[in-house]
């Protein structure tokens, strides 16, 4: 599951940011954290990876090669129990196809939909309310807006339904002021307007939307929720910082007092002030009062932190041939023993492979490989497996299912399939497949259909969607004579 991988690797980064934030919140410019959250958000939402030799996963790999036994443990913890899958096949070959959507996917989708619906409904409901706001008739605000032109259209309105000023809309922003605003307190008004204009200029509404998207996709990951809360706070902190920089540092206590005033009014109207928002406003005030002019040192520190954290926690290990396998096995618990097909990603869940003996399937010729994929071959560790029936038919054979013995009293719990291959009215042999207790007991192919007769009894067969796949090499002779391959 791609999402799980993305969630996992972003979690490490989020954890790192949370720690850096706790240590350096008041020491470096707040924008640093916004950049870091943006990197984490990219990791969460965009399925790509950048490699770097400094990646933390390089270290993990180095440790792993030392304790290589770890690898086997991870491979063993495969989510797909081969035995169980084979049991399903044993009960009914045809049924395998219908059981293909994993319960994890279903659970994820339900959670995703619930989250998305919740945010969407809440947002739309509030938005409908905001839309009923009335224009502000205030000379100061009009003059102020004229002297602060914006590229996008910004409206300033008032509403008796909100307790604190807010801005909504990404491309056509609207600043909403509560009706109870002290319209005569001009300094107060100016602070609020500067603050909201910073939000608009920075497209913070869009950032918040992306954060919501991250939370919806990764709803199962508590760290992503932590990130959602902290990033939203950091948006405010960084905005405050920009306001104080515009106003000048001497005004910072005056600005902080305005914020406290707004907060008092808010709690006056909504009696249920939870501890959490109290912490948030405290953090804001403290952060404003602790604000200092950015020195070269803090700027350098900020750049180093961003570069360092991104490099170490947001990249994959450099894909050396040696450790590439370990990375993929660490990142995804998908065991190599499960068959994968290039055509569909979810086939991992669908297919089950039954091994009787170590497969002797080597690619026939490197050059012919693309041709095999075109013929609908299955990729098993790089070797092509061709669908038995389809390939035979493709080669001009008519395939008849001669018999299908399910309840042979002599061989309990055994299913036997016999395919007869006919060409030009002549029977060319019988391919036989016995599945006993979920394992292929014997598979034999007679006649000239395949002249690797001896090996055929000890081979691996892949069952996928009730299709029998055999290593392409068993068709080699027939394919070569038929000039089907280059």
């Amino acid at each position, binding site marked *: 599951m791609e999402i799980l991988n993305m969630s996992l690797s972003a979690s490490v980064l989020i954890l790192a940011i949370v720690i850096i934030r706790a240590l350096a919140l008041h020491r470096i410019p707040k924008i640093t954290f916004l950049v870091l959250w943006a990197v984490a958000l990219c990791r969460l939402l965009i399925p790509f990876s950048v490699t770097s030799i400094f990646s933390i996963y390089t270290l993990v790999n180095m440790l792993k090669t030392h304790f290589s036994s770890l690898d086997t443990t991870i491979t063993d913890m495969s989510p797909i129990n081969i035995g169980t899958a084979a049991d399903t096949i044993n009960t009914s070959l045809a049924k395998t196809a219908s059981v293909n959507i994993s319960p994890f996917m279903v659970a994820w989708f339900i959670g995703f939909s619930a989250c998305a619906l919740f945010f969407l409904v809440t947002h739309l409901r509030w938005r409908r309310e905001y*839309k009923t706001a009335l224009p502000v008739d205030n000379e100061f605000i009009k003059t102020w807006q004229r002297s602060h032109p914006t590229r996008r259209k910004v409206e300033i309105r008032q*509403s008796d339904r909100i307790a604190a000023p807010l801005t909504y809309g990404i491309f056509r922003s609207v600043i909403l002021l509560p009706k109870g605003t002290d319209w005569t307190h001009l300094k107060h008004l100016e602070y609020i307007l500067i603050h909201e204009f910073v939000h608009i200029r920075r497209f913070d509404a869009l950032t918040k939307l992306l954060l919501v998207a991250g939370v919806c996709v990764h709803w199962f990951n508590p760290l992503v929720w932590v990130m959602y809360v902290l990033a939203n706070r950091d948006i405010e902190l960084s905005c405050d910082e920009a306001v104080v920089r515009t106003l000048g540092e001497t005004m910072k206590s005056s600005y902080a007092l305005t914020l406290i005033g707004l907060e008092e009014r808010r709690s006056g109207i909504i009696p249920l002030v939870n501890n959490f928002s109290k912490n948030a406003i405290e953090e804001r005030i403290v952060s404003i009062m602790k604000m200092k002019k950015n020195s070269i040192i803090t700027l350098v520190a900020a750049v180093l932190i961003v570069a360092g954290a991104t490099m170490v926690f947001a990249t994959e290990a450099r894909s050396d041939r040696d450790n590439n396998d370990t990375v993929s096995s660490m990142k995804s618990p998908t065991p190599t023993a499960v068959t994968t097909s290039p055509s569909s990603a979810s086939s991992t869940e669908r297919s089950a492979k039954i091994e009787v003996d170590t497969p002797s399937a080597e690619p026939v010729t490197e050059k012919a490989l693309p041709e095999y994929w075109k013929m609908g071959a299955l990729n098993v560790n790089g070797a092509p497996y061709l669908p038995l029936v389809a390939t035979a038919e493709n080669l001009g054979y008519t395939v008849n299912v001669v018999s299908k013995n399910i309840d042979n009293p002599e061989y309990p719990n055994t299913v036997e399939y016999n395919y007869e291959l006919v060409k030009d009215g002549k029977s060319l042999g019988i391919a036989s497949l016995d599945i006993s207790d979920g394992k292929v007991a014997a598979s034999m192919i007679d006649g000239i259909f395949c002249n690797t007769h001896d090996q055929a009894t000890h081979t691996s067969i892949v069952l996928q969607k009730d299709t029998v796949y055999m290593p392409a090499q068993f068709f080699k002779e027939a394919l070569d004579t038929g000039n089907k391959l280059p």
Partner: protein
Amino acid sequence: MEIKLFDSELKVMDILWKEGDTTAKRIAEILKEQVGWSKTTTYTVIKKCIAKGAIGRYDPDFVCHPVVTREQTRELETTELINKMYDGAADQLVASILGWKSLSPEEIKKLKEIVSNLE
């Protein structure tokens, strides 16, 4: 019957009180001009008013009729103010208004008339 109306709803009621029965379409037109609301926004507010029982509607054309009067609304708001700020004593509110708002001789004369009528 107490119907508490928000600013947006009062805006719609204002039109009905001034113009009498009006179609929803016409209200939307007026408010688009006055406060820049879209048609859907106006309709949302009208629906809220209907749900609260402040507006009655009849077809065809979705004609809106003000069920509550401006006086009823004012009364409600004033009672609330008196209870909240003046401990339910209306005379204190009047005294307070007379204290800070300078009234013209004409207004004072009108008030005197109202008082003498009550007596």
